[in-house]
């Protein structure tokens, strides 16, 4: 029995090494798109529709500055973008690119009132609509919240996905560590903060699982059944999926120094955003200005953005139409897990559908919601 287990393990290891040596190329972010606007290193991509456009209001996806946007379109069967396209939404996404020395003085104001605002204006111009929907993810969600507070007249719906707005929590390790970080010394020394430095911090949050167990697990998942061709195909897929994720994890852009400085100090250390005290180029961000419909989506087991960091957003805004969804998954699982494709995307689409209608149909929906709310109150 013991020998059989050993033989099985050896066989798996050998198969795994062979797979690494002969694995065909793999790609990420394969959903077809076109670049419709560029500014410095920022690119605005428009995804080619896969279904007839059913909802006139376009969605702009704003991803974080750390890591790359293609986690939302990692592979065809794990793609938030593709699921939303299939539901008939018109989707745009911002690719922030890879900042270099020349970008070290970019501030959050440049990102929010510059790049995001110009991207929103471009989409408004193309769609002929005054307002569009914003879907902000992680730190991109925080930037979207800032944008929605400063430019509410251009945002029809705001969706935040695993987004931190309240940084005064001791539930996440990043929140604890950030308090004691000498941000000035890091920014003054590097100018452009290396992505690898941030990645080291992310890895440290669960060192043994992320640096050892993950790789052991890959070899354990290898199948070696009697039908070698079928197994081989499945193993290849397992390895490709693993490598796609591995590529994304270590594809960490450097950070514009001044943006990093302000984000760490104003948000993580002073927690100014949720207190309505944060300023961008002298303009105060008042979250009460957010009056559009809000959907705040969280992951229950998020180790990077704990729920405590996201929940207060719903109380801080003045929107009457606001909802919170919590899924039993993790920070990354919410984009690529099977639950993401089966539950998260459909729920976001369901929420967006009636809020992405043209004028008259939207009025009917609003009236219906009003009636529903008054019924609930009467109860």
């Amino acid at each position: 029995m013991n020998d059989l287990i050993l033989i099985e393990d050896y066989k798996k290891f050998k198969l795994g090494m062979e797979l690494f040596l002969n694995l065909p190329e793999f790609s990420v972010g394969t959903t077809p798109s076109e670049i419709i606007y560029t500014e410095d290193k920022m690119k605005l991509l428009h995804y080619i529709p896969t279904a007839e456009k059913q909802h006139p209001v376009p969605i702009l996806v704003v991803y974080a500055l750390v890591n790359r946007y293609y986690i939302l379109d990692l592979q065809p069967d794990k793609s938030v973008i593709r699921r939303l396209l299939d539901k008939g939404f018109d989707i745009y996404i911002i690719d922030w690119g890879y900042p270099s020395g020349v970008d070290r003085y970019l501030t959050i104001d440049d990102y929010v009132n510059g790049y995001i605002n110009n991207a929103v204006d471009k989409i408004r111009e193309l769609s002929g609509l005054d307002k569009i929907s914003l879907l902000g993810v992680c730190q991109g969600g925080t930037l979207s919240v800032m944008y929605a507070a400063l430019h509410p007249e251009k945002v029809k719906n705001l969706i935040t996905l695993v987004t931190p707005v309240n940084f005064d929590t001791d539930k996440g390790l990043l929140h604890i560590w950030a308090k004691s970080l000498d941000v000035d010394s890091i920014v003054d020394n590097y100018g452009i903060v290396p992505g690898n430095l941030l990645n080291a911090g992310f890895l440290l949050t669960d060192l043994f699982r992320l640096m050892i167990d993950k790789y052991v697990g890959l070899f354990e998942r290898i199948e070696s059944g009697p039908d070698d061709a079928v197994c081989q195909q499945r193993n290849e897929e397992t390895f490709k999926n693993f490598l796609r994720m591995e590529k994304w994890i270590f594809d960490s852009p450097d950070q514009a120094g001044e943006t990093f400085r302000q984000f760490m100090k104003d948000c993580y250390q002073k927690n100014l955003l949720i207190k309505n005290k944060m300023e961008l180029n002298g303009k105060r961000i008042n979250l009460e200005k957010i009056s559009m419909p809000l959907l705040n989506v969280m992951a229950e087991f998020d180790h990077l953005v704990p729920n405590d960091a996201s929940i207060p957003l719903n109380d801080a805004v003045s929107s009457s139409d606001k909802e919170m969804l919590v899924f039993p998954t993790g920070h990354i699982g919410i984009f690529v897990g099977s639950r993401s494709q089966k539950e998260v995307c459909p729920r976001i689409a369901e929420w967006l559908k009636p809020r992405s209608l043209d004028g008259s149909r939207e009025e009917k929906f609003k009236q219906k919601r009003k009636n529903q709310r008054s019924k609930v109150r009467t109860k």
Partner: protein
Amino acid sequence: MSMEKSSFEPTQEFFDQWLKTYETTCGRLVEMPAIGPSREKSEKLMKGFSSFVNLYAAWMDSSINLQNVFMEAMRRMHEKTGSEMEGEISPEKYKDFYKAWIETYSETFKEFLKSDHFASDNGRFISYFMEFQKRNREMLEENYLKPMNLPTKAELDDIYKELYSLKRTVKELTSQVKELSEKK
């Protein structure tokens, strides 16, 4: 958690003693103001050395703390699996051992990483590391780049700043021109 108390007290004591001796002997020499024609260079060199000692001290503190966590994890691991791992170790047992090892070490480290103690130590270590890198770079620039007439980081940063400011002005003016032409 018992790992807060050092199991590496002798190492800690030795290092503390070394640091005290350094501070009262060589350290004082390093901090002494330099004089003479090369005083500026000497002072920078000495400050660089001083930042290295600070980094070394912070690194030693962190190492001792980490060693304590490893010891605590090992102790917990022994408690969990000590009796089970006696006698012949089968592959199945080995797998269980691995599982227990990952779980115990992950949990023990998480407890340590969550502590304010780690956060402040880590913050201090990073500050000293940044300071050391900065001094190192300044020395390199002073002794190699400047004599060879090559641009330094500070000079590049000046250009970047100027470029950033110009770009911002151009963007603002472009948007004003666009607004004005739309009004017409």
